[in-house]
């Protein structure tokens, strides 16, 4: 079953002044199906809209960000619920118990003036009725923290007494303690060294295996995706350019941007010059017409400058949006 679906989702940052209206098309007409019990990875150029996409699908779009069109379905007790149609109150019930969000830069998410334990307690009691506190709260918390390599003593600390890596793990512990069905993790390892990163990845994977939920993992780090994502999505300038199972994507990238992304990865022991995609990504407030990658694409064709390629299934479960690959184009020729 697919646990989360979006159809033609559009979510823009909109700025209106008496004289002008500016739109940043951060999520631009995207449709996606995410399977249950999987780790779904998202990668892409900085500023291409990954965080905005996560914020939008977990119902956190606040002005200037607005959902301009499309739908977002969660599978709740076997039925699809369109969350864009839910009332605030109904939605709040779903949030955190059903879907939880670890925001980018979440090391600063902990309340700085209270001890870590109080943050946990506030959080859990706000979402669940606690009957027997010792049993229902302390024990799972202890187990949970243990798995993260965090001793119970962290509970007595204030956030500033913990290192970045530790705060990150505490935040992940916090976001997963209620056993949510979907976990959105935005760059959970970015500020970490490789050892702490590995511990966090191991933790996310353990949680997923244990709770059989779905993790949507956003990171720039392709090595992290290679390690734990089952399926991957590549975004570029607000659109989805490629989606495939992780091994297939690494072995057989079809979109020129994905090819650059994978081809430019440095390897230890290899100092040969790595070329990166020429130029820089467009600003989303000022997108080029047609395929948004065309100003940087080595294979650009006339059609690319005029029309936007659709996301087409090229092989079973491997989708790409590029005229080089598109069946439509081959048929037209």
């Amino acid at each position, binding site marked *: 079953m697919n646990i989360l679906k979006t159809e033609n989702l559009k979510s823009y940052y909109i700025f209106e002044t008496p004289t002008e209206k500016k739109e940043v098309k951060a999520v631009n007409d995207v449709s996606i199906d995410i399977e249950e019990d999987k780790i779904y990875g998202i990668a892409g150029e900085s500023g291409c809209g990954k965080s905005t996409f996560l914020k939008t699908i977990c119902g956190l779009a606040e002005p200037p960000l607005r959902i301009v069109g499309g739908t977002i379905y969660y599978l709740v007790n076997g039925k699809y619920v369109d969350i864009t149609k839910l009332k605030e109150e109904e939605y709040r019930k779903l949030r955190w118990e059903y879907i939880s969000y670890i925001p980018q830069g979440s090391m600063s998410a902990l309340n700085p003036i209270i001890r870590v334990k109080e943050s946990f307690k506030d959080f859990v009691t706000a979402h669940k009725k606690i009957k027997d506190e010792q049993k229902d709260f302390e024990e799972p918390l202890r187990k949970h923290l243990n798995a993260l*390599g965090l001793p119970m003593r962290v509970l007595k600390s204030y956030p500033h007494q913990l290192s970045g*890596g530790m705060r990150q793990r505490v935040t992940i512990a916090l976001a997963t303690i209620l056993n949510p069905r979907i976990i959105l993790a935005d760059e959970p390892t970015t*500020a970490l060294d490789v050892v702490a990163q590995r*511990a966090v990845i191991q933790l996310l994977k353990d949680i997923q295996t244990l709770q059989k939920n779905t993790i949507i993992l956003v990171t720039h*780090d392709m090595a992290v995706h*290679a390690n734990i994502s089952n399926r991957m999505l590549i975004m570029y300038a607000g659109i989805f350019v490629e989606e495939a199972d992780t091994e297939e994507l690494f072995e057989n990238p079809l979109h020129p941007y994905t090819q650059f992304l*994978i081809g430019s990865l440095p390897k*230890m022991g290899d100092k040969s010059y790595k070329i990166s995609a020429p130029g820089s990504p467009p600003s989303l407030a000022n997108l080029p017409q047609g395929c948004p990658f065309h100003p940087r694409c080595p294979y650009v064709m006339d059609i690319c400058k005029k029309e936007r390629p659709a996301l087409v299934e090229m092989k079973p479960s491997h989708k790409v949006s590029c005229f080089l690959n598109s069946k439509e184009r081959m048929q037209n020729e």
Partner: protein
Amino acid sequence: MSNTREELIRTEKLQKIFVVGGGFARSKLVAVDDVNFHVNKDEIFTLAGESGCGKSTVSKMLLGFLEPNEGKVYYKGEDISNLKKWKDKKGFMKEVQSIFQNPFETFNPLRKVDSYLYDTQKHYGMNHKGRVVEESLEAVGLDISEVKGRYPNEFSGGQLQRISIARALITRPSLLVADEPVSMVDASLRMSIVNLFKELRDKRHVSVLYITHDLATAYYVSDRIGIMFRGNIIEMGDVEDVLMNPKHPYTQMLKESIPEADPKKKWTERISIKELETEEYMRKGCKFAGRCPYVMEKCKDNMPEEISVENRMVRCWLYE
């Protein structure tokens, strides 16, 4: 490359102590201790290591933003704490520029990016008739026309990071201190930024102190590397020696943990992280003793000295 290269910046026994907590819980944290390294002219030197090991604290002391408790920083042979006059300080700041992790924090969201660049030029008294801003942008692959009249939020993070490098180049610096400059950008852009560092080194004689967690790019761009652990540099030498043939048990562990971007080579072994950071900082002897597979009696109470072995420095009693 010869051994007699010109030194640009050097630290000597650098130490920084922070007081953490309040009231009875007050304690001292020696965040940086006995750190000795130098960056040569035309060189990319990397500082890498665990989160919270003191890298940013070192860079802040180098830039003169933070005063060391002990030790000195020498720039071109001169102790930077002697730069008392504003004119001398400004001269130093002109030559040593910094680039930060989050480009969105470098720029004021309410000001147009180009006016900020022109102000930097004016502030440092760079010749305003020349094309200083334009040339700096060109060095990072941008044209002034792409930047003119636009606000920071009209750029992507990657573009903005390039612009912040351009800003740092306006004063024609000899040294760039780049603290995690690529952690926010994707793999392709990451390579274009580190390639830019190489180009700046080779064509404009700019040295770079590159602070990062990303050992793969560190290997790719740097000439020499220092690995930090809990406030000390525990291994330092040519990047080829240190990363391809690490001697210190911590560097070895670090290297084994570098994930490979290949879904066929996933991690299989589990790791465990037991100790709290502050406990490791407080250790009297080798700070890695709690996790080291080769720990000896001596390690527990005695801090290892800087030992020279196979063309690099190692702080580990195994090599005594």
